[in-house]
C-alpha cells in the first residue's frame, strides 16, 4: 500500500520509494530509506500528512506520500 492510504497512529515499514532522484535523495538524507519505520500522526486531510520517522516529525506532501510504498509493521513491535 501507499503511505497516503495509511491510518493515524499506525507504524509502517517503508518498502520502496518511487520519486525523482533529488527528492528521493533528500528523503534518504533525512533517514527515510527502505526498511525505515514510519509512524503516521495525522492523515486526515486530502492533501499533506504528518508523520514521524527517526525521532523527528515531518509534514509530507501528498505527492511524496503517494509514491512511498509501505507495509504495516508487526503490532507487537
Amino acid at each position, binding site marked *: 500500500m501507499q503511505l497516503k492510504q495509511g491510518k493515524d497512529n499506525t507504524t509502517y515499514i517503508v518498502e520502496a520509494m518511487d*520519486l525523482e532522484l*533529488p*527528492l528521493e*535523495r*533528500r*528523503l*534518504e*538524507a*533525512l*533517514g527515510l*530509506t*527502505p*526498511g*525505515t519505520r514510519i509512524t503516521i*500522526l*495525522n492523515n*486526515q*486531510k*486530502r*492533501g*499533506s500528512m*504528518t508523520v514521524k520517522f*527517526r*525521532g*523527528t*516529525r*515531518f*509534514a*509530507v*506532501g*501528498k*505527492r*511524496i506520500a503517494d509514491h512511498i510504498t509501505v507495509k504495516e509493521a508487526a503490532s507487537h513491535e
Partner: protein
Amino acid sequence: MSKTINVGFIGNPNCGKTTLFNAFTGANLKVANWPGVTVEKKEGYTTYEGEQFKLVDLPGIYSLTSYTMEEKVSRECIMSDEIDVIVDVVDASCLERNLYLTLQLIELGKPVILALNMMDIVEERGMEIDLHRLPEMLGIPAIPVSARKKSGLSVLMHAVSHHADHAIQNPLIHHHHDKQSRHEHNHHTEYAMVYSDALEDKIDVIMDALACSYPTLENPRWHAIKLLEKDESVTAAFPLPDLEKIIDRSYEQEIINQKYDFIEEIIQEILVNKSEKEAFTEKLDHFLTHRIWGLPLFLGIMALVFLLTFTVGDWLKGYFEIFLESFSAAVTSGLTSLHVGDMMISLVVDGIISGVGGILTFLPNIFILFLALAFLEDSGYMARVAFVMDDIMGHLGLSGRAFIPLLLGFGCSVPAVMASRALEHRKDRLKTILITPFMSCSARLPIYVLFSQMFFPKHAMLVSYSMYLLGIIVAITTAFVLSKLDGSKAEHALLIELPEYKSPNARTIAIYVWEKVKDYLTKAGTVIFVASVILWGLLNFGPSGYVTDISNSFGSIIGKAAVPLFAPVGLGYWQIVVALIAGIAAKEVVVSSCSVLFGVQNITTTDGMSTMVATLGALGFGAANAYALMVFCLLYIPCTATIATINREVESKKLTALIIFFQFAVAWVMSFLVYHIGLLF
C-alpha cells in the same frame, strides 16, 4: 601571537546554531554570500586565553551529500583549508536526528567537537544524557552548552583550541555487545562508525586502490565511502576504472541505514530518561494541525496578532505623539530664541522632525507585530502553518512551504524575499518572490493607520485589515493565474520538519525584536532622514531659488508632470504623486512626505489629522481617493531595500525590472477599480 584557529560551525536546521554563533561573536560579524550562490555566509571573531578564533557559520543542513546548494557549500568549505576545526552543533533534545550529520562529519577526518546545545531543554524535560559514554562512542569530545543561557561557551573554545592539531581523533575502543566483528581488521579500534563486514571489505579494497592511484590523498576512508555511495563529485574527481566489480552499484542506502542503526545503538546507551514532552506536542498538534480546525485556528491566531498590533500599538502610540508634539514645539521655540534663520527652522521642524518623528510614532505598532511573529516562530508553530496551508497553496501551484515567506512578508519584505530560498525549484522561488511584496509589510501600516483614521474614523481598524486581506487576495490570484499560464503540473512537494513545541525563550525573542526595531530606527535615522531632507529641498527650492510657496518648487514641477498618469486612479494630485515617488525609498516616507507636502505638522495627532482632512477635502480628495491611495501603496513598487534584495535573489536585472513593472501595473489597475467602484457609493 599564535596563529588564528579557523572554526566552522555546522548543524541541522532548528538546532540553535546561529544563536550559539551569535553568543560568541556578538554583533561583530561580517555577512556576505558564498561566492556564486545566494547562500548567506557569516564570519566573526572571538578570543579565548590569548588565542584568536575565526568563526564561520555554515548553512543549516541535514546531511553532507551534495544535492542542495547549502550542502555543497558546507562540504566544500569544510574540506578546504579554510576550516581547521569543526564545531558540530546538535540539538541535544533531538539527538537521533542530529547525530546523522555528526557521523558524516567525523568521517571527513578533520577534528570535530560536538557542541550539545539546548542542554537546558534536556533538563527541563527531565531527560538525562550520559556525557561520559557519548564521547566514548563517537571518539570526539562532547561539550554541553546552552546558547540561550550562554553557558559552556569557554569550555567549548577550550576544547577547540586543544583539538585543533589532532587531525585524526584518538579512537576510543567501545564494546559492541553481541555485535562482534569477524572482519579481519577490527575497525572498531580505529573508527567510531564501522559498517557491516561486507561493506568494510569493499572499503578496504577501494582504500588500497586509492592509495595506489592518489598517494597524497588525505582521507582515503571518506573518499572510499563516497565512491561506494557513487557520489557524483568524488567519483568525477577520483576515478578508479578497475573497481567496477567492487563498486557495482550505489551502496548509499546501506550506508545510511547502518549509520542510523549505530545512532540507535548510541541513543539506547546514552539517553537515560526519555522525553515526556512529546506527548504535549502531539496533543497540541492534534488541534493545530487538525483537518478542519487547523485553518480557522491559524486565521484566528493571525487576527489576534493584528488586533494586538492595532489596539496595543495604538495605545502606546498615543504617548509617543504627545511627546513628539511637545518636542517639536520646544525645538521651534528653542531655535527661535537662538535667532536661527527661518529656513533652518523649517528644515529642522518641517523637514526632519515631522519626517523622522512621524515615522517613530509607529514604532509601537511595529514592535508588537514583530513580537508576535517572533513568538510564533520561536514556539515552533511556523512550520505547522506550512502544513495547514499546503492544500490551499497546492491549488495555486505552490508548496505549503511558500507560505512562510508570505507570512514573513507581513513583517518586512526583505527577509521574506530571502526566505524564498528555502524552496527547491527556481520557478517556485520566482513566483513566491513576485507575490511576496503584495503581503502588506509593516512599513505600509503607518499609511493605512493614518488614512483610515482620517477618512474612515468609525471603521479604521476594519479598513486597515481589509488592506491585508486585499494583499493576500491579489497575491493568491497572481499565483493562481501564473500556475494556469505555465500549465505545467506543480513540481512542489512539501517536506518540512515539525520541531517540538517549546515555550518561547524571552531572550531569543528579545534579540529578534530588537534587531527589527533597530533596523526600523536605523532606517528612520538614515533613509527616511535623507529622504525627508531631500524632499524638503525639493519642496523649498525651485528654479528661482528658495521659495516660500510650495507650488513653485521643483517637487511640484515633477509631481505635476506625472499627474496625468495618476488622475484616472483618483490620485491626480501632485503632492500625492511626489509622496508616492518618495515612498519608493521606504514606504513610511509616504506618510512623512504628506505631512511635509501639505504643510501639516504632527500629522498623526487628532489636530493634525483634522487639518489634513480639511486640506485634502478642499482639493476634492475624499474617502474613495483615500482608499485608492491605500490600495496603491499596498501594491505598487516595493521599497529600494526590497528591490535590491529581489535583484540579488533572482540574479537578473531584466527580471527584477519586469517584476517591478508588473507590481506597478497591478497597483494601477487595482486602484483604478477601487476608485471607480468607490465613487458609486
